């Protein structure tokens, strides 16, 4: 197992380099340069050139890329923002806690709601309860995020006046954004859990267990759930990425300073160091979460664990 984890950590290096290169290339090869974006259309060409030179943007793409990677690897320096002239890491540290808290709160809420209702729905397949749960979940999954967010704000902030409409100062500020983000993921998890449960309930070993006279409860908890959790756990891991997408919308609607709005603003301003820094930061985090998920995965499914320990498959 340790060997497997170590190997996965090693794999992160090419992935992160790949991410860095891809993002750097996208930002450098699309139109516009930081100088003219900052100074605007009325600026003199020589001022724009001077500013670009100050940023080192006048050098060829590959040289800039290797300089950047050099700084990151050798000095742990994520660079300085073109816009604010401040170290990128300050921007990230100021905003990351909000996004992280929002993501974790909504993922937890979504898992609790989605998985438990999904199990109920699967166990009670084809009953009125099952159908209602599924349809309600689907309706929530089909509502665009910004619309749901605004509706929540209208009701709770304006009509009832019980929750703040913007900001991230206290946990109360996180209630509405969390609901906004978790609704879509909860619906997805409910359906996935339901279908995975149904899938496993029909497997041989469940039938065997049934035939052996095991109780319904025991079958669900002991046999079905564990196997059904496989695809669910994968989705959970990757959902962190999707939640970030949801977080962008929630952060915008509820004026919450977070990574989502940081990255989108920086992309539009072509603030390469900020985009690079935050993308790499999230990439490391994301890779670690995926790794943790895969380890959990192995715990749940011993067959896969065995495979990892053999160092991959060698059947052919």
């Amino acid at each position: 197992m340790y060997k497997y984890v170590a190997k996965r950590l090693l794999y992160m290096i090419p992935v992160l380099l790949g991410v860095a290169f891809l993002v750097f290339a996208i930002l450098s090869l699309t139109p516009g340069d930081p100088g003219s974006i900052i100074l605007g259309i009325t600026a003199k060409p020589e001022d724009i050139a001077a500013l670009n030179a100050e940023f080192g943007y006048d050098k060829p793409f590959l040289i800039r890329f290797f300089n950047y990677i050099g700084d990151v690897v050798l000095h742990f320096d994520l660079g300085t923002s073109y816009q604010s002239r401040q170290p990128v890491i300050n921007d990230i540290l100021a905003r990351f806690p909000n996004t992280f808290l929002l993501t974790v709160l909504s993922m937890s809420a979504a898992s609790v709601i989605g998985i438990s209702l999904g199990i109920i729905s699967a166990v009670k397949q084809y009953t009125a309860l099952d159908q209602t749960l599924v349809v309600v979940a689907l309706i929530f999954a089909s509502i665009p995020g910004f619309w749901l967010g605004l509706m929540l704000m209208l009701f709770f902030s304006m009509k009832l006046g019980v929750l703040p409409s913007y900001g991230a100062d206290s946990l109360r500020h996180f209630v509405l954004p969390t609901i906004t983000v978790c609704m879509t993921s909860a619906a997805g998890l409910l359906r996935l859990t339901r279908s995975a449960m149904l899938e496993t309930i029909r497997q041989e070993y469940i039938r065997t267990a049934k035939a052996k006279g095991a109780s319904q409860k025991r079958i669900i908890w002991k046999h079905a759930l564990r196997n059904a959790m496989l695809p669910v756990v994968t989705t959970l891991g990757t959902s962190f990425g999707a939640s970030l997408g949801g977080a962008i919308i929630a952060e915008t609607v509820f004026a919450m300073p977070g990574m989502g709005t940081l990255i989108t603003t920086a992309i539009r301003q072509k603030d390469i160091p900020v985009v690079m820094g935050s993308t790499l930061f999230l990439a490391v985090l994301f890779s670690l979460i995926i790794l943790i998920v895969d380890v959990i995965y192995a715990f749940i499914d011993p067959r896969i664990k065995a495979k990892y320990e053999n160092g991959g498959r060698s059947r052919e």
Partner: protein
Amino acid sequence: MHLLIRVLKQNMRMGVGAVNRQKSRTREQFREFWRRYRKNKSAVVGLIILVFLIGMALFADLIIPYSKCVEQVGAERLQLPSAAHFFGTDEFGRDLFARVVHGSRYSLFIGVATSLMALVAGAILGASAGYFGGMVDNIICRIIDVFMCVPPILLSLAVVAAIGTSMQNLIIAITISCIPGNVRLIRSVVLTVAEQDYVEVARSYGASNARIIFRYVLPNAMGPIIVNTTMAISDMILSAAGLSFIGMGIQPPSPEWGALLSAAQSYIFTSPYLLFFPGIFIVLSSLSFNLVGDGLTDALDPKLKN
């Protein structure tokens, strides 16, 4: 890479053969499928809604001419729904009913096209990774990891900035951002299925890899994949809306539903019907694809074939 191409070629050859062999059983299978599908009442409702929406898209020109979508009547701006304008008019004085009806063509097409493209790509990559394991798995997974770590908006922006905004480019942008998730999901399902006994048996008979993947592994992994794809269609419709929202959607004045919805956002307090009608159609289409997907999951499940 050429390994992948080989797999793809084998699959195509084999696919035709498989279809021929199964022709005789098709009708009987369909009857069985329909019997099981009907059992799920909400799936039937979903199917009805879906047929209605597809009908609307196909016969849009008969319902109301396209010119009504773009005709701007300055004197009739932001009018409430009435007999003359069933859904009211927008800020340009255009008939919202016409825009919603014709919008179905764009939205449904984008949803279906992107999720099918992403499914095909996801199935090929995911199944190869999950089935072959080792080096193939490694390379595919690392590439997918790279793409998963890059924010989707950045990828979309790259596509749009590089080749401009249009229907095709919108489809490309959305497809790219949803392939990685598909690959991971299909890979994980295939990982489980590939360990099953019947795959071992097939392998011991000397069946080719491609045959095993497409004849045994994928069909048995179908449940989660179908759920995922049908949900994907609605996600894609919403993604298109999201891209319209950040200004990378379809060219105006094309009436894509998401574009209608995001344009109406400014009028959320004063003319809420502008959000209501496109919104309700997005929800309906998404809902129907999902319900049908659920029905299909139950009806197509190979493990129920006895």
